[in-house]
């Protein structure tokens, strides 16, 4: 894998690409028996067209919760704070705030699998065992693809939009057409004998093949944003490398934005143009991958990277930072990281909460050391 090259992309065109997703001050809490638990406490980040954002952080830091909020795929006891904004390109090129939309609304359903597709950590469990792979891909295709989409910007007036949506309703693909697309997608993600595989059940495919099929399902509807929640964690190293390469290729072909969630800084360095480091429900540092890895500003990021002595042996797991993550029920006062921070400023870090500070070059950090 040519890491230098992929990281090299980062330094160019850092801010030009338009945002597909712009999250501002997202706050998600859970109603539990022990009271209200805040899992995500005011995070802001953007995902850009044609680029990959890496979300990294220890278990429980809120990576899944903050990304699932985009499609409202949260447990029933989750509350999205009304002050949050989740501005998303739902297909027409401009950003709309989806935060206030109810999870069971038609708009959210259209976004799920439409503008935003997701793949998950467990390729074994992502498909239902009782339907064929083809059935589950075709399901997504028939929900979102229309016979012929009118070119972007063709729907200017309200009348046009109504006419277009009526036409789209009628132009739902037939099962046969959706099946053809399923085969085509399986072929595209590098599954040989796609016309046979499409008829098979998940248990007849290997783990790597299932994750490829999952990617095929996600991309079959041409999403603007792909949220990949630890898509390679359950796979062995060789398969993992293949899947990462495939995702990079497909991104180049289709120009979608990817949010890539992982524990693995090595994977981040390989695939992400930008990184956001999460800790206890907040983003402590974010910025272009290369700059961030070469010169981490936040003590937590430094800790994460210390375990990685050289850039070419990056594939280590994240357990380097000494100390335990506090329970979200007992969030420390002041800086969330102060209980473990080696550079803690006594009397300050345990009293005040650091705000996010822009450092220029698209970099942000939340730490008093950089004021």
């Amino acid at each position, binding site marked *: 894998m040519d890491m230098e090259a992929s990281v090299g992309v980062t330094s160019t065109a850092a801010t030009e690409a338009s945002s597909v997703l712009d999250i501002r001050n997202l706050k998600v809490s859970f109603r539990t028996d022990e009271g209200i638990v805040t899992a995500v406490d005011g995070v802001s980040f953007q995902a850009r067209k044609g680029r990959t954002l890496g979300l990294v952080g220890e278990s429980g830091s809120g990576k899944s919760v903050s990304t699932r909020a985009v*499609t409202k*795929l949260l447990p029933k006891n989750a509350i999205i704070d009304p002050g949050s904004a989740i501005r998303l390109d739902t297909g027409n090129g401009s950003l709309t705030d989806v935060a206030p939309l109810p999870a*069971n609304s038609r708009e959210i*359903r*259209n*976004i*799920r*699998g*439409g503008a935003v*597709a*997701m793949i*998950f950590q*467990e390729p074994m*469990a*992502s*498909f*239902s*065992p*009782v*339907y064929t792979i083809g059935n*589950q891909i075709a*399901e*997504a295709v028939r*929900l*979102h693809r229309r016979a012929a989409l009118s070119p972007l910007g063709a729907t200017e007036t309200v009348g046009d939009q109504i006419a277009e949506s009526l036409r789209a309703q009628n132009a739902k693909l037939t099962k046969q057409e959706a099946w053809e697309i399923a085969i085509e997608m399986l072929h595209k993600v590098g599954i040989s004998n796609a016309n046979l595989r499409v008829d098979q*059940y998940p*248990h007849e495919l290997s783990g790597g093949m299932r994750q490829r099929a*999952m990617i095929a*399902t996600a991309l079959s509807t041409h999403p603007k944003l792909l949220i990949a929640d630890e898509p390679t964690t359950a796979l062995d190293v060789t398969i993992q490398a293949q899947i990462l390469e495939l995702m990079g290729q497909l991104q180049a072909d289709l120009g979608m934005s990817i949010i890539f969630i992982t524990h693995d800084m090595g994977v981040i360095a390989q695939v992400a143009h930008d990184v956001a480091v999460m800790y206890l429900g907040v983003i402590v540092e974010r910025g272009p991958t290369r700059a961030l890895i070469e010169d981490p500003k936040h003590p937590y990021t430094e800790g994460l990277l210390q375990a990685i002595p050289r850039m070419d042996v990056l594939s280590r797991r994240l357990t380097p930072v000494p100390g335990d993550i506090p329970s979200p029920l007992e969030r420390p006062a002041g800086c969330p990281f102060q209980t473990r921070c080696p550079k803690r400023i006594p009397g300050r870090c345990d009293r005040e909460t650091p705000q996010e500070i822009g450092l220029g070059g698209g970099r942000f950090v939340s730490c008093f050391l950089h004021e």
Partner: protein
Amino acid sequence: MLRFALHRLFGMAVTMFCVSIMVFTIMELPPGDYADRYAFRKFSGTGVNITESDIQNIRVQFGLDRPAPERYFDWVWRIVTDFDFGQSFAFETSVNDVVGERLWLTLAILYATLILTYLLAIPIAIYAAVRRHSAVDYGLTVVSYLGLALPNFLLALILLYISVSTFGSSVGGLFSPELEKAPWSWEKFVDLLQHLIVPAIVLAWSATALQLQTVRATMLDELNKLSVTAARARGLPEWKVLLKYPARLAVNPVVSTVGFDVNRIFSELPIVALVLSLPELGELLIQSYLDLDMYVAGAILMMLTFFIVVMNFVSDVALAYLDPRIKLEGG
């Protein structure tokens, strides 16, 4: 799928063969045979003395002088080719006449019970699992514990009492007295359905309680599966997600225990039938044991096991259809 079905069908034939040997052995156990009984009956009825040679003649006439294996094959052969189960000693007529309508009425009770059980248990349990911690969910838990705790003959008596005291109707039997001997008509059919309700409730009671718990637990399990989240993430409407993914799998334990339910219904039926005076096979089976009327007992045992085996087959095939992982293992 076809190979799987044929495989199971063969297994079914082997089972029936083994069962027939066991049943025939049971039939042979009581001392004496049909000829002895015939002679004794004739003697006690008419006072005419019967000689040993008369008995021997009867034996030859009915083929009872032949060795047991030969008679076994004869018995099986007649059942398979002519659906002829032999003669009843007690009723002095063919077993088919004795069993007659009771066979169909037993099946009517069986299917009414199964349908009622599944119609109640499956939708309610799925609803309770989806609306976990709701009033329906808690209510269901209480009702199903009650269902498991209350013996069904007691329930039968309670329902009998209620319907007689408040509605003044006769729940006993399967037909109203005036229609009992009438030929089949729409009116008689509706009358049968009305009379089936109480026995079906009584027999479905504990099975429903049990299946409610199983389906609810499986549904809760399935609802947490990643594949369900993945289906939601594809934008499938929630009710379609529920029906297509978790609900379909939640039905599996029900389908796989159909044979078990049939078995249980058959074993509970005689007591319930006694309380509700239903003309069904279980009660006749007990009576035929008491009378040592072995061909009747044999016929009923064969029929009941046949239905259990058939329902097991149906359940196996349905399960293989519902869950494609099974086909590979089944061969």
